[in-house]
């Protein structure tokens, strides 16, 4: 009992006192503690070694080495704390240190401490350890946490399945440590059976392994086991490959390479064997392997990600989002427009009565009309941001995107063009950047051209603002219809693209969807506030500047809108606009929307003389529903924002292609607008 005084276990009844039947001393045992980081390995080490610890570095490495001693039943245990590792490949210094120690020092026992709550992840290390020349004990730590999470592990069943000793523990409460010590001693004395069931590989690969071992065997340096070296060669382990290659004659090495080349899939078989083994162990010993909230997520996902019901749910969610936005915000918008903005405009008009005409025009029509009208739509944006924020926070947005994938599949759009388009539902910028996964330049360029057709939330927000300006209470229907039109345009062009360019090409995507959770009102509130702030900042800068420029261009020279520069340009463009039912003011509004989508509203407000009257009233008086709808279609399909344009330039690397892309989207949006206008006119909307 030489050094027990140093250990906090001194008062524990772990070890039997010396007697005639139990002579002392017997010898020294080396015990290595292995495990992943944060599984309580250090707690176990501290409990066992107490003040007898020695801290240094592993020879030639910057990794910390901790050694300590514990005495029991006449055995002195030298306990070595191996670095925390997830596996035993040669990927990191820690992993190399851990496996080299076991191979070179040959500890009598390796205790692998695992976190019972994440047993599956922890078993991977054990699967690798069992191939090394050492007797292994599984220290099943944190069983209390696992129980709290609804995971019930049967240590005896696990022990029978693994064929190695399993000790349940709660190291943080000093539970199971004595049992662990007794198991170590019992295993060394040969009193505990040890017949590990190791992960297996398929029979055909076992033959490959045997032939590798036959060639490699004579060149494997001591103390490496030849079977383990062969296994690692088959897995493509870089360190072992180098080790063997250095010691082998060229001819034998070429033989090895030829075998490895013929059996490239063996790497999957070797690693796959470990997962089969983990799956079997977990199935045998773990009851209710899923925690409650995952089951809830899965249950909800059965509908939310269902090929048909998922789409129905998405449609319903969008409809409710738009309906809620308009039902609450539209009355406030009207009040702001007709009472607040008009009131301010009239008051300012009275103050500016003695000032020159151009100054009151600039302030009332240019600034109050343009920016003020835009600001009356802030309640609509607030509600829209809030509903989107709610859906994001709950975890639904990722599902919505996943359901869109099913929809795109239905229309024949899949393959590598899927991912960029999928990312586009969040924002068109990553969509354009996501085309990098497409190697072929032609296919990549075409996907870049299509990416802006994906309706991103920012564009939906603009539609949410524009639709009520033209359509008032019918806006929810129009907004919903526009989103679906945009998706239809995307699917049609995407399917065509796929048919021409990606025929027969496959691409698989796996999505890790976040868990659903109860929305946090503070998070959503903060999100809405940040987004509203960004919008207000834009209104005070870009929209204000564009409003002033548009007002100036529509006022000078001549003082009237008809004689102004913009008026002349507009008249020149009006034959084009006639196709879509646009008057020249709508064409100018569409052009200014390129700088920021919201400019469309501000420009319309300036050019239609809003300020003294509310914009929706003016628009409904002078723009037919068919023209209004065509305008919204053009806005929806045109390039979403300057950021997307900049990234298109960056990713195509050429101005030519960026301009071709912009031209294509402009043409497509105008053609769609013309088609919608002509159809709506036929149906009596003009």
């Amino acid at each position, binding site marked *: 009992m030489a050094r027990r005084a140093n250990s906090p276990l001194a008062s524990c009844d772990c070890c039997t006192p010396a007697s005639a039947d139990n002579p002392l001393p017997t010898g020294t045992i080396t015990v290595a503690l292995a495990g992943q980081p944060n599984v309580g390995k250090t707690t176990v080490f501290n409990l066992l070694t107490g003040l007898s610890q020695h801290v240094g570095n592993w020879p030639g490495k910057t990794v910390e080495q901790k050694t300590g001693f514990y005495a029991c039943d006449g055995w002195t245990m030298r306990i070595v704390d191996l670095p925390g590792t997830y596996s035993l490949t040669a990927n990191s210094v820690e992993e190399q240190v851990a496996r080299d120690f076991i191979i070179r020092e040959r500890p009598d026992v390796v205790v692998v401490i695992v976190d019972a709550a994440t047993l599956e992840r922890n078993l991977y290390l054990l699967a690798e350890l069992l191939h090394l020349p050492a007797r292994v004990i599984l220290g099943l730590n944190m069983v209390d946490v696992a129980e709290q999470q609804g995971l019930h592990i049967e240590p005896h069943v696990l022990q029978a399945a693994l064929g190695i000793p399993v000790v349940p523990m709660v190291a943080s409460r000093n539970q199971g440590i004595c049992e662990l010590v007794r198991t170590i001693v019992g295993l060394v004395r040969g009193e505990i059976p040890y017949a590990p069931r190791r992960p297996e590989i398929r029979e055909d690969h076992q033959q490959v392994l045997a032939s590798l071992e036959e060639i490699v065997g004579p060149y494997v340096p001591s103390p490496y086991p030849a079977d383990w070296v062969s296994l690692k060669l088959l897995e493509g382990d870089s360190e072992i490959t180098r080790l063997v290659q250095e010691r082998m004659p060229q001819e034998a090495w070429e033989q090895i390479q030829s075998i490895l080349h013929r059996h490239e899939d063996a790497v999957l078989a070797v690693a796959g064997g470990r*997962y089969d083994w983990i799956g079997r162990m977990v199935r045998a010993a773990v009851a209710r392997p899923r925690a409650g909230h995952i089951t809830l997520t899965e249950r909800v996902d059965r509908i939310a990600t269902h090929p048909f019901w998922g789409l129905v749910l998405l449609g319903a969610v969008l409809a409710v989002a738009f309906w809620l936005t308009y039902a609450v915000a539209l009355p406030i918008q009207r009040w702001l427009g007709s009472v607040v903005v008009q009131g301010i405009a009239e008051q300012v008009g009275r103050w500016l009565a003695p000032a020159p005409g151009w100054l009151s025009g600039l302030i009332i029509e240019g600034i109050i009309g343009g920016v003020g009208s835009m600001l009356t739509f802030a309640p609509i944006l607030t509600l829209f941001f809030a509903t989107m924020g709610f859906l994001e926070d709950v975890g639904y947005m990722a599902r919505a995107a996943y359901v869109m994938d099913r929809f795109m599949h239905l229309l024949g759009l899949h393959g590598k063009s899927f991912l960029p388009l999928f990312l586009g539902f969040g924002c068109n910028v990553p969509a354009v950047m996501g085309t990098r996964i497409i190697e072929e330049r032609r296919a990549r360029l075409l996907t870049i051209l299509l990416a802006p057709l994906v309706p991103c939330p920012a564009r939906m927000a603009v539609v949410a603002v524009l639709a009520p300006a033209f359509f008032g209470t019918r806006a929810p229907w129009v907004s919903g219809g526009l989103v679906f039109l945009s998706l239809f345009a995307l699917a049609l062009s995407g399917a065509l693209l796929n048919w021409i360019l990606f025929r027969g090409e496959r691409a698989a995507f796996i999505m890790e969807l976040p868990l659903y959770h109860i929305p946090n009102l503070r998070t959503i509130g903060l999100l809405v506030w940040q987004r509203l702030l960004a919008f207000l900042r834009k209104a005070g800068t870009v929209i204000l500047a564009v409003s002033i420029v548009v007002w100036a261009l529509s006022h000078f020279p001549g003082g009237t809108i008809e004689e102004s520069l913009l008026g002349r340009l507009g008249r020149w463009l009006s034959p084009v606009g006639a196709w879509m039912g646009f008057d020249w003011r709508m064409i100018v509004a569409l052009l200014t929307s390129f700088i920021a989508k919201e400019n469309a509203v501000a420009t319309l407000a300036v050019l239609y003389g809003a300020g003294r009257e509310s914009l929706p009233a003016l628009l409904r008086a002078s723009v037919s529903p068919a023209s209004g709808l065509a305008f919204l279609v053009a806005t929806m399909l045109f390039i979403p924002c300057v950021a997307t344009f900049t990234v298109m330039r960056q990713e195509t690397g050429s101005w030519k292609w960026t301009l071709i892309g912009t031209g294509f989207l402009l043409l497509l949006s105008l053609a769609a607008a013309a088609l919608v206008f002509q159809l709506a006119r036929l149906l009596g909307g003009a």
Partner: protein
Amino acid sequence: MLERLMSLLREGKTRTVPELARELGVTPTLVEMMLEELASRGFLYALQGSCAGHCEGCPLQNACAAGGTRIWSISFAPPDGGEGRTGK
């Protein structure tokens, strides 16, 4: 198991982790572990959508990349030209 997972992925569909887990008869955690291993060996690669600072000033810039979903894609030829065999 990995070979079965790879052959499922080679069908070229888009799937979620729970779907793959159901098809393989294992837990989603095990599927995630296998995806990470396949990625570390160069058979899959993780895709991350990002605005990389281009969306400054966009009120909805946080909506980027579909709500923080992690997406994996299959490399029909290992992207590093066969380096996948080295284990990293």
